[in-house]
């Protein structure tokens, strides 16, 4: 089937919907009065602090000394662009994000395909694979720190017994450090990815597969030409959610490596924490936060656009 390219047109469904103008009649006033408490709370708790952050990103404010905060224009942002440590943290975060999403999507898809067909222990396995997601990230980090321990950790013991070289997982260099963090994140979040994809797989109507069967499609073709394209909205959702989660990754990194060796595994969240809460350089930390928010908004918009267009394409 040829997919038509969507053009902006006058028959857009959004415009076809009758629109109610904003009239302040009694009913509407009551409605606003009813939602206003929630709205005010949202303002105070979400938007207010964010605005506070935006304001302070343009100020020099160090809590270690008794000087009041002062406006400094774009100085914090300019310093950020020159800051090699920020660039390094950004690269590390990006690396974890891209590699994490790829690895977890592949593994998650494999698990979802295995769990798709009903079998006797399926409900038990479904419950069991959820456990890593439910464990607090701090506990996960501590567990894996013991597992990765070079001297008495079980992982190196097993590798050594099998005749493999025993790597210094969390203390040798950037590669092993980031790889260790990736393993922990993958262990914790792959089940979540698998469940989302499983829900997607179960949503694909059987008729599609029957039609492919009638057309004589081989299983590999069915997978690539039917299953994967129909799972696309689910993949977009996973990429969006995992991007947000990995972008904020803190606990495993803090517990496993504290960003070390040196700054080899430092992520943006860790650097922002250190700057704001250890060095008490509030203005600079807020500027980091603002840049991260802008980056995330851009990414989220790209993904959402992708989702919307994929929905429209699939509707057509």
């Amino acid at each position: 089937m040829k997919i038509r390219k969507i053009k902006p047109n006058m028959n857009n469904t959004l415009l076809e919907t009758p629109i109610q103008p904003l009239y302040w009649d009694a009913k509407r006033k009551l409605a606003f009065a009813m939602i206003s408490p929630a709205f005010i709370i949202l303002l105070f708790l979400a938007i207010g602090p964010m605005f506070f952050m935006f304001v302070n990103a343009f100020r020099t404010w160090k809590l270690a000394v008794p000087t009041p905060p002062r406006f400094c224009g774009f100085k914090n942002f300019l310093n950020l662009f020159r800051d090699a440590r920020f660039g390094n943290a950004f690269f590390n975060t990006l690396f974890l994000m891209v590699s994490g999403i790829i690895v977890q999507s592949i593994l998650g898809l494999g698990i979802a395909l295995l769990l798709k067909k009903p079998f006797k222990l399926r409900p038990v396995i479904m419950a069991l694979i959820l456990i890593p997601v439910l464990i607090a990230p701090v506990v996960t980090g501590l567990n894996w720190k013991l597992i990765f321990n070079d001297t008495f950790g079980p992982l190196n013991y097993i590798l050594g017994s099998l005749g493999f070289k025993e790597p210094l997982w969390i203390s040798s260099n950037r590669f092993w450090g980031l790889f260790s963090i990736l393993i922990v994140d993958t262990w914790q979040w792959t089940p979540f990815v698998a469940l989302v994809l499983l829900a997607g797989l179960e949503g694909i109507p059987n008729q599609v597969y029957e039609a492919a069967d009638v057309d004589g499609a081989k299983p590999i073709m069915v997978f690539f030409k039917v299953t994967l394209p129909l799972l696309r909205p689910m993949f977009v959702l996973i990429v969006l959610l995992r991007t947000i989660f990995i972008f904020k990754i803190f606990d495993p990194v803090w517990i496993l490596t504290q960003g070390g060796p040196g700054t080899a595994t430092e992520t943006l969240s860790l650097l922002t924490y250190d700057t704001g809460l250890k060095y008490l350089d509030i203005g600079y930390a807020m500027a980091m936060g603002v840049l991260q928010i802008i980056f995330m908004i851009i990414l989220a918009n790209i993904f959402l656009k992708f989702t919307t267009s994929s929905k429209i394409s699939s509707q057509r």
Partner: protein
Amino acid sequence: MRQIRLRKGGYRKRFLIMSPFVKCKKNYLLVRRKKMRFNKFAAVCIILVFAFSITSLCLAGGKGKEEVAPMEEAELTITPGTKISVFVDGGINVFPFELFQERIKEQSGIELILNPVAQADVYTKLKNEFVSGTGAFDLVVYFPAQLPEFVNMGNLRPMDDLVGIRDPKLDDIITPFRKLYCEYNGKLYSLPYDGDLHVYYYRKDLIKDPVEQKNFKAKYGYALAVPETWEQQKDFAEFFTRKKGEKLVGKVLANDFYGNGMLLGRGWCHYEWMDHFTSYGGIYFDENLNPMINSQAGLKALSDLKQLMKYAPPGVLSWGFTENRGGFLGGNLAAMILWTGTFKYSYNKDESKIPGNVGVSHIPGVIVDGKLQYKATMPFGRVMSITSTSKHPAEAFWVAAFMSAEASIDFTFDPRTGEDSFRYSHVNAPDKLSEYLANFSKGEVPVDDCKNYLDAIKANLEKGYPDLSIPGSNEYMDILDLYIHKALSGEMSDKAALDKVAEEWNKISDSLGFESQKSIWLSQLDVWKELGYVD
């Protein structure tokens, strides 16, 4: 065919739009109207958010140094039934308060409300409290490196006028702890709670073994003994590093054995480096606040660490306090430098595989003009201060004085706490320590061993080297730690790493106010000179 409502006021009039031209125009009007409605809504939101933010800024952001109101003369009496809120790091460090809160209530009627936090959060949470000024705490336990910062911010109340409430036995506090941890600008601001200090731990059984002695002498040409210098420490560590299957003290090793443990994890490595750096005569800054970190002393210290790393466990770049203590007491290390408390556990067979074989000595150093020069860093430590917002300073002082002067000998000797000796009465009581440790370990603890341990503390204190105690010390030391870690992991060369520290330290000093930082540093330097820690 579509219906579109156009008129304000309801559903009174409807147009049937059929011609494409009319349809297009009407659509344009609709979109525009929608936009206008959205704009109104957005404007309301922005105004609300702006108002909220400005209020927040006024309340929290615009505060600079607050003028501290002159202290009212405190009444020198305490009121039974008063509740004192105590801020302290949790686990083994809140335990002394838990041990003594009943006795405090019995003796004074004062009730303690304990607010334990994680050790890593002490500075941050305290700072948050001081910035927001809620007055939640009366008595705070924190690290003395932050004392000048808190005093300068007006967060602490001087204690001089409260001394009459209960005798804090100031003369009994070991001089460096009193001068550096309790006093600032000639006023008493705190009482000690924990006297942290680095000491050198070694395995006595290894040194005593005749076969090992013979082999060592044959290899290095001098007698096997407790290392006095870094060079000897390197030989010692090299000699005792053995592979699984080799013999140590006549026994075949089931695991690899290492010559020394080291504090080289991120956040820890600067402590290990400082022991070397200071013995070579290194100092944080000169008198003009120029960083002296990248001096020859700094480079030699890094070179020492890299040498010693060869004889440490392979993952030592992630080792902190727990790994070193566990490795040493687990019988896998020949020596290490650590805080004084580890000795207290060494006789307990549940925690230690080497009971009775732990020796304690002064930190190794270097020979300068025929004399041994060594320094022992004094990282962390804990002190108790009264907040300037406390409504019960008299009661808070009573509690601080009780804990520091009366209860401290018990809780610093008790292995269940994390606190270490800080009074002359502590380091001169080997009998009492022996009794405590014997009760805890359920076995005999020789008084001589305890005397040797307490003498080592005294010897190290004579050559102590305090933490940097100027505002921003957390940031200065973390940057130092970061680049030392980079150098140790091979990410940067030694010179480049230390030069970078110096560059960053200059930036920090400038951002915090160069002149004020310099004057605080100079005042600290005066006390160090008075104590003979620097020339």
